[in-house]
């Protein structure tokens, strides 16, 4: 170390880190710990200060039917969006990476949803799903299907959100696959061609295994997003009908800023933090086994 005057390294290092550290402490570590602490207290008002209630909030949560419904929704939402968007992303990347006519245009089309705000595209999708006059019903109408209130029906509303989310995210994940594909040595494919291996065989036995670290990375991002992305709910459904499309983070928002129950919101946030912690730990365990990543 060129500035090595024993202690100086430590002082300079910490001084450089200090500004970022202050921000991280104030807006990430402190609120994480405070959330945990507040989940053990009752919600205070001007007349009734908040008091320690132990696990009371958690007991309420376990008895809260809406919480279970939201948890179930989030599970199905994750299961519906993740595999499809990751598979589509891979397909898109392979297509765009190959010799495709109008490749630039196709790549742009796939990527465009990524640069558009969720809130803005939700406005457009809202029209697609509008009963009778919406685009979905108009297209289905051509085949003689009757109109349907897609977002008003508890059975179809979550599916509608899943379709839109897949549309929004696939192009973003495609980028990671595209970057990985372009870093693969081209000799591999040429060698496989000389050996007479078919494209599908080559993909299955060479490309896909080599993309495994990328798949893992994309999967983790997809899981996080399925818990973090709720913007579209504000426009499309507001969690309805009867919480059929409500997701955990949106429920936290409702509890905190519509029902003003901060203690319960903190308790729900702890659940969300726990989910994220499990993902983080899982990531470390899996990555440890796959040393060839980085």
């Amino acid at each position, binding site marked *: *170390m*060129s*500035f090595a005057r024993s202690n100086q*390294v*430590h*002082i*300079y*290092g910490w001084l*450089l*880190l200090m*500004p*970022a*550290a202050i*921000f*991280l402490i104030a*807006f990430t*570590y402190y*609120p994480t710990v*405070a959330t945990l602490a*507040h989940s053990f207290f009752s919600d205070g008002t001007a007349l009734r200060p908040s008091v320690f209630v132990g696990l009371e909030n958690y007991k309420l949560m376990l008895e809260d039917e809406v919480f279970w419904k939201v948890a179930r929704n989030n599970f199905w939402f994750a299961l519906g969006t993740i595999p499809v968007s990751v598979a*589509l992303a891979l397909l*898109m990347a392979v*297509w765009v990476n190959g010799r*495709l*006519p109008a490749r630039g245009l*196709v*790549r742009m*089309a*796939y*990527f465009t*949803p990524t*640069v*558009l*705000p969720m*809130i*803005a*595209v939700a*406005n*457009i999708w809202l029209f697609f799903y509008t009963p009778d*006059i919406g*685009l979905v019903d108009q297209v289905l109408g051509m085949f003689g299907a009757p109109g349907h209130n897609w977002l008003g029906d508890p059975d179809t509303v979550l599916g509608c959100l899943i379709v839109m989310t897949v*549309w929004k995210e696939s192009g973003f994940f495609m*980028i*990671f696959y595209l*970057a990985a594909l*372009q870093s693969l040595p*081209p000799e591999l494919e*040429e060698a496989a*061609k000389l050996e007479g291996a078919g494209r599908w065989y080559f993909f299955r036995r060479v490309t896909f295994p080599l993309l495994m670290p990328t798949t893992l990375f994309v999967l983790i991002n997809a899981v996080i997003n399925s818990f*973090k992305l709720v*913007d579209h709910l504000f426009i499309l459904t507001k969690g309805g009908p009867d919480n059929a499309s409500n997701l955990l983070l949106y429920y*936290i928002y409702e509890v905190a*800023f519509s029902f003003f129950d*901060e203690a319960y*919101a*903190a308790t729900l946030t702890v659940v*969300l*933090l726990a989910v*994220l912690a499990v993902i*983080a730990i899982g990531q470390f365990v899996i990555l440890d086994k796959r040393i060839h990543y980085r």
Partner: protein
Amino acid sequence: MRGGLRMVGEAVSVARAGAGWMPRESFWLRLEVLGAWLLALVWLAPLIYAFWAAFHPPAYAIRFELFAPLTLENFAEAWSQAPFARYYLNTFLLVSSILAAQFVLCTLAAYAFARFEFFGRDVAFALVLVQLMIMPEVLIVENYRTMTLLGTVDTILGIGLPYMASAFGIFLLRQTFKTVPKELEEAARIEGCSFLQVLTKVYVPLAKPTYVAYGLVSVSYHWNNFLWPLVITNSVETRPLTVGLAIFGAPESGVDWSIITAGTLLAVAPLLIAFLLFQRQFVQSFMHAGIK
């Protein structure tokens, strides 16, 4: 050797392309091309529809006729019904203040992690990476409380504060700084540069592509961000475009489709135009940021 192999490979593939694929394979290839195009069309459909509805009179919002008259009326209407100019200004201030703060904070921290073996470095780095998982969106309840204490509720600064120290930015810059040869730094030291001068004269200029990449990712993210800005703002003077658009387009507001889509296009226009103009740069930046 490598180059030679590649040339052989290219010669082979050129020869194959020249000779034409076998009929069966060519059928599947054509089907794939068709599939790729069809998917691209589906992916663009919402945007195409938005353009259709915004540039035609409301009567044609749900009727698709090739020679429907074009109009800019919807844009004029949307512009007059909501303070878009103010929203633009707010979003611009928000995005640029976050980016400026991120550049400074992340550069300093990344330099420390890349080149200083200070006490507790690895633990500190692991702690920084925690923010990749626990993003500010998750902590809206507590952060709102903090902003109340700081008196930054309903300010543009309040929207930006939780995002200014970005683990992603620190990580990205650290990776880049680590690739800078130490000899360059030593040469600068001999010339008499202080350690901050080394940073600004050697490291920062060499990391320019990373700054561009990170900048584009950050700007797109914060231009589009919604949940936290919604929570922390409650006046026209602070609301960014996304929040303004959500209020404007809410079904309760009774505005019709054509005007909502016009408003939507107004909100996304700057970023969309930038993306279409610098498409390569955008895609490359997201890739650059994704590889690290």
